[in-house]
């Protein structure tokens, strides 16, 4: 009922806003407070550095300090070192990662990601184990008696998008050939 259609002296108390309308008004407040709380929690988690990679070189250098604490290791699997196997009923894969010339033997528990392959960097969650990696057929590249036991693996691929067409390589080759031809013409050969 609009104000215009009410008699001027109608002093009947107006009915309170229906419960559904009140609920509708409180929802944005709940969303805003929830979003603000989530932002604070996420930012604090980020500042605390819950994900921080040590590359293989740093991980080896900091081994006394890291002990058997969990940390995240970054390195590239070396070609020819990847050996799948089993530890009891569990699937494992053993390989050696390298960073800046420093190698670390790794035993990863569980299935690796689909794009896992030699030369593509991996990020591994796990800890140092003071024993050589014991997976059948795996010899490893590191002989210091330690290996890294991992239970979570992610691929950290680069930003190159190449396909069979290899445009840049063909353009580079054409430029190269063009220079050779131009030089030949210039020298009268």
């Amino acid at each position, binding site marked *: 009922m*609009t*104000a*215009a259609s*009410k008699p*001027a*002296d109608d002093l009947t108390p107006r009915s309170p806003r229906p419960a559904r309308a009140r609920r509708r*008004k409180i*929802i*944005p*407040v709940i*969303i*805003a407070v929830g*979003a*603000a709380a*989530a*932002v604070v929690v*996420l*930012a604090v*988690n*980020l500042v605390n*550095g*819950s*994900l*921080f*990679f040590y*590359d293989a070189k740093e991980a080896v250098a900091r081994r006394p300090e890291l002990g058997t604490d969990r940390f995240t290791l*970054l390195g590239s699997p070396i070609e020819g070192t990847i050996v799948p196997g089993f530890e009891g009923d569990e699937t494992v894969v053993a390989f050696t990662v390298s960073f800046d010339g420093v190698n670390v033997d790794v035993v990863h528990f569980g299935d*690796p*990601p*689909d*794009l*896992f392959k030699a030369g*593509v960097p991996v*990020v591994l969650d796990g800890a140092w184990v003071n024993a050589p990696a014991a997976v059948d057929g795996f010899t490893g590249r590191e002989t210091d008696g330690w290996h890294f036991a991992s239970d979570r*693996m*992610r*691929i*950290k*691929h*680069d*930003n*190159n*998008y*190449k*396909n*069979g*067409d290899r*445009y*840049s390589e063909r353009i580079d080759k054409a430029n190269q050939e063009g220079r050779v031809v131009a030089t030949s013409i210039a020298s009268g050969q």
Partner: protein
Amino acid sequence: MTKLMTDDTIIDRQRGTGSRTTFWLGVVGLVGAIALVFLGFFVAPPDDFQKDAVRMIFIHVPMAILTYVAFSLTAIGSVAWLWKRSIWWDTVAHGAAEVGVMFSGLTLFTGSIWGRITWGTYWDWGDVRLVTTLILFLIMVGYLAVRSFDGDEAVNATRAAVIGLIGAANMPVVNRSVTWWSSRRTLHQKSSLVNGKIEGLTLFTLMFALVVFSIIMLWMLIHRFRISWLERQVSEGDLSEALTARRAEARAGMDRETEENK
């Protein structure tokens, strides 16, 4: 505002928020989207490493870029509102925030699926690129929530403008995170576009996707702006109606008193 009650407005209401320009913009966007599906699935080649998963780039990257564009518009509109009290810019800021929230949500969603295929995980709570993007999304959800608060719209617009600027301040962190913390805190690769690491038909399709999604975003923004503008007019129209009714009520009361005194 009372214009809303005229016959012209009734005709406008029947026509909705469309115009000849938005009609053709929509048609171009739709045809472009169909062409993009064809290009993305059948013409662009698979990647040497990622194989067919690379096709996610045609959605994920344009969504991410247009998220920045939308939230930048929100930031500009917020400044204009705080500085000049520009209702036009405030309406742009609001519309851009809505579209931006949708695009950033899709960026997170498509990125998560792509991450599962390539990285081997949907999400990592410590990854600086992923989490700062989520924070941006949540800040802008907060912006929209504040705009929906009960009470004075101008006060809500001012509060939301401040939140919009906080969101904008987060954008450079989101964008540069892959460079600042590349080898320490994120799985996300660096930009391929800026660094020229993408080529041929993949690059062409990506650019085409960017154009198509830009057209779609523009179409959405125009419609959202017009809806918001009409909403404002309706609410201001309602206010004018209520004031007129109160005045009439008061006049009737005074007339009656005068009659009684006679």
